[in-house]
């Protein structure tokens, strides 16, 4: 279903894009103003869905209130500087814990050096992150009023009189613990655990609560609890479990599951939206007991912008609705016949095709959903 020609600005519109690698979110705030979180593009072309979206729907006299980078990972920064320079957002935010960009920069330099020593062609991505940090620094310097260092409790000012946007994680001391220390150690830590720095954004519009979970995990892959993770956030902010929409953290990975965040539904309707991650073994995982299965125990459907699979496998699923078991069959069928090797080949869709948009009123109700052409509704059965 194509997006409408114009948005009903009495409503709050949430747009989530995930072409396969990268995630970008836009929120058209009720009344006026936009919030942009992270960014993505389609590999192989220069299409930037968030820029295209703003070109289409941003009113002449309207502003992007804030542009936020949840964490400095290379699947979240594409197009960030394009929005930054083309739409001049009033506020530009990044998780720093309130101690500036220097610790992150030190760790990033160390990471770049380690990649260079490995003769690593992937260092361009870390260079891209460096360029984004430079652009944020540049903007903060030129427009000091735009500076927004993100951590728990920071309010993001908007032009919408009906809306509150608040950062809910991480706590300042949690950031400091992650980014302080010897640069080489911090670099290694951040390479493995930058998701632990991820900001969580809460948007309140009347009775409607939207939670953007970033990539924040609950557990490390070792099973150890993440100090800054959902186990820290939810006792502090239990109300986040009572949401109307949740951008599912970390592409539905099991490590990001938290029973209070992924609570049993208490409202009549709500939206859980996720994007894929097409690297390594990819996310979401479709096996029993993995992330999607756990989520579908608590919510009848998960809205996926796309799958980390070859286009021909996922394309044109009837009505975009697919059961987890069917999906898992397709995934298994796509894999190699070798007894140990798994086919991880994933093809990106176009950025505009892998999208979900949802409109909410201020009473906590979903007014409309718009899937992109390759978006899916995954249901338990």
């Amino acid at each position, binding site marked *: 279903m194509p997006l409408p020609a114009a948005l009903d600005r009495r409503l709050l519109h949430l747009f989530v894009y995930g072409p396969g690698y990268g995630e970008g979110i836009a929120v058209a705030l009720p009344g006026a103003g936009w919030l942009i979180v992270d960014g993505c593009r389609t590999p192989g072309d220069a299409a930037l869905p968030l820029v295209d979206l703003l070109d289409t729907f941003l009113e002449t006299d309207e502003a992007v209130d804030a542009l936020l980078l949840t964490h400095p990972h290379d699947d979240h920064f594409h197009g960030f500087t*394009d929005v930054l320079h083309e739409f001049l957002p009033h506020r530009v935010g990044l998780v720093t814990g309130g101690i500036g960009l220097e610790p992150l920069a030190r760790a990033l330099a160390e990471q770049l050096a380690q990649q*260079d020593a490995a003769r690593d062609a992937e260092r361009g991505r870390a260079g891209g992150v460096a360029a984004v940090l430079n652009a944020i620094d540049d903007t903060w310097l030129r427009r000091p009023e735009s500076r927004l260092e993100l951590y728990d409790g920071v309010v993001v000012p908007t032009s919408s009189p009906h809306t509150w946007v608040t950062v809910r994680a991480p706590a300042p001391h949690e950031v400091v613990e992650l980014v302080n220390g010897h640069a080489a150690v911090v670099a290694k830590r951040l390479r493995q655990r930058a998701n632990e720095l991820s900001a969580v954004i809460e948007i309140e519009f009347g009775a409607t609560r939207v939670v953007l979970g970033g990539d924040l995990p609950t557990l490390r*892959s070792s099973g150890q609890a993440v100090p800054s993770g959902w186990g820290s956030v939810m006792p502090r902010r239990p109300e986040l479990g009572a949401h109307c929409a949740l951008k599912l953290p970390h592409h539905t990975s099991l490590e990001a599951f938290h029973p209070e965040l992924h609570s049993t539904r208490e409202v009549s309707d709500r939206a859980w939206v996720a994007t894929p991650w097409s690297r390594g073994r990819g996310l979401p995982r479709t096996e029993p007991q993995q992330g999607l299965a756990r989520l579908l125990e608590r919510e009848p459907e998960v809205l996926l912008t796309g799958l980390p699979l070859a286009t021909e496998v996922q394309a044109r699923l009837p009505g975009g609705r697919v059961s987890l078991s069917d999906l898992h069959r397709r995934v298994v069928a796509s894999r190699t016949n070798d007894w140990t090797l798994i086919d991880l080949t994933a093809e990106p869709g176009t950025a505009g095709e892998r999208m979900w948009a949802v409109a909410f009123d201020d009473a906590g109700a979903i007014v409309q959903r718009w899937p992109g052409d390759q978006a899916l509704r995954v249901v338990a059965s």
Partner: protein
Amino acid sequence: MPALDDVGLQEIPARAEEIARLVGERESVWVRGPAGSGRSTLVDELLRCEPELAVVRTPPLVLDGPAHLLLQILGAAGGEQAKRHARDSGASLRARLKAPLERLLGRCKGLVLVLSPGWVASTDHVGSNARDELAHARQRAGELLHEILGKARLVVITDAAWTWPRRKGSPHVVELSPARAPQTFLDREDVWGPLAEDARRLHAALGGRAAWLHPIALRIGVAATALGRTHQLRAFLPRKVARALEESETLASAHLLLETLAQSVPDLRRALLRLSRARFDIPRGLLDALIASEDSAIRDVVRHCLTYGETDRRVAVPLRRVAGAGRGPELETARQEAHACLHDHYLSLDGASRVEDALPRALNWLERLHHGMRAGGERLDEVRRVDLGCRELYWSLGRSLSRAGRFRDAAEVFGRCLARIDAQDPYAHHYLAFNLDQAGVEPQAVERHYRRALELERDNAWWSSRWITWLIDRGRPREAGIAWESALEQLDPSGVRLQADSWLAYHLHRWVIRAALEHDQLALARSALESLPRNVVEQEPEIAALAARIEIAEFIDRHGHALHPDTVPLEHWWTRPQHLPLEDGGEPLEAWYPGRVTRTEPLELVLGDPEAGQRGEPRILGLQLAAGFRIAGDLAVGEGQFVYAARYRGGDWIIFPIPGEPVSEETLSDARRMVRYLLRTR
């Protein structure tokens, strides 16, 4: 001292008399000759014939070269007008030179201009696309020469490669031939001093062959024989040295011999490096001071073989080339020590603190500054306190500070140049921005001055390339794209220059592609590459390497992972590496996959499928191994490490790690550059 006849310069006095006569008849003369043809001797003889000739000698052309020429002429001209013109007030070099040059030619019998290598006579092929300091120096030197070369009563002495511009008339041409010295020259104890026995041994080894040789070749031969003896190097036994000298009638084989000798005796290269810092003849006492820390064998070779001249000592240009080839911390220390020694010498000859006061001894003053700038430390700071008065000297000082890593100080010098000399100087604007950028401070000022330099000189490829790469670095890719389009439109709208040669590609496209690649701007990198003709990409190895990197980056963008280190071009990704064993324990290799470690416990790998890759349909595979594998050499593997995973018939997986290099301080420093502004955020 050897008589002129002994070294084959017997024609020089007659030549000098002829030239003096021509100058007396208001003619212009161009003397050209190769190294060792007696050009310096000719100047001495000319002055003997006509003491009222003014002589101006230029240093090898670097940034301060034009100031050298101008100030020496102003100094020789004398008078208040010359003093006024000494200070750069924004007027052109030609305008500052014109009247004092007339005055000089009116006061003396003629001007002898000795041009060092690198000086060109016209700005025709330099253009305003000057990339670096040499191109800038050439452009400004060309302005001065343009004014001088049309004059009567001028003697210009150059090397054999120089050409007289056609538009500047037809001077009398005097060709000097390379000198030839007889082998008997090797028997002169007064020439060779403590190396006389080595010279005799070389003479004996030469036998009757090559009866006449270039004096510089003979000197190098004796040096090689002597150091072969003292350092017990069999490659430099007299008969081997003699054979090397016989093999060519030109100096080429002697140069090769010296280069080989310098490789075998590092102390010699260091001594040559010290010597070659002197741009003009130096007194013997100063020569001794320069090499005081070298051992006696090296000192003897320097005194008797590598420098020559009857009163002052000079170093032949070919020896300078060998000296310049060395790199490393020890040589850098020697370089700075030599500059310090030379600075102190010239400071004792002229301690003027402003340009006007330095005119009578301009050469000494300029050499003091030149060496002070390169000596570093206190001497460099001493130069900073001098009222330089000429933009070339500000540029030179700024570049020296920049090379010393003192970027803020360098920026301050370029700022002073703008404030005191010319607020419209594009070079100073550009390098003010560059040094602030290197320091990672004041990005708004960086932007302002980069922009201003480009506004003042729109067709400067170098200014464009720095501006575009700065925008990429600062996370402003869209503006970089616009600036890129604008630069192409300005510099080569029809693509003719790119077709003509690879200059523009090397100085503009190469930098833009590299910066775009380093900052994940693949579309811009690809677009810049595609704008180049194929033959240019093939001819320039660095651009060809960047093209290969773009292909790999696009693969990663498309498929998610690098499967080889970036030293392996994409076209070789699916070819089995030679060092991968074809069998293990007698069992043949069944399958191999390139890839890297994504997790160590349990071991997880992402791999490429070579068969699919060869078909042009790359497939990425995942492999998780908790058991049933071993790592070749029992090495540890780390996350991100490149490996080959191989399976042999009936056996386990064997993982062959590809070792990475340790992170060096230099690598880390390069990486820090990318976030330098952030590291200064407080």
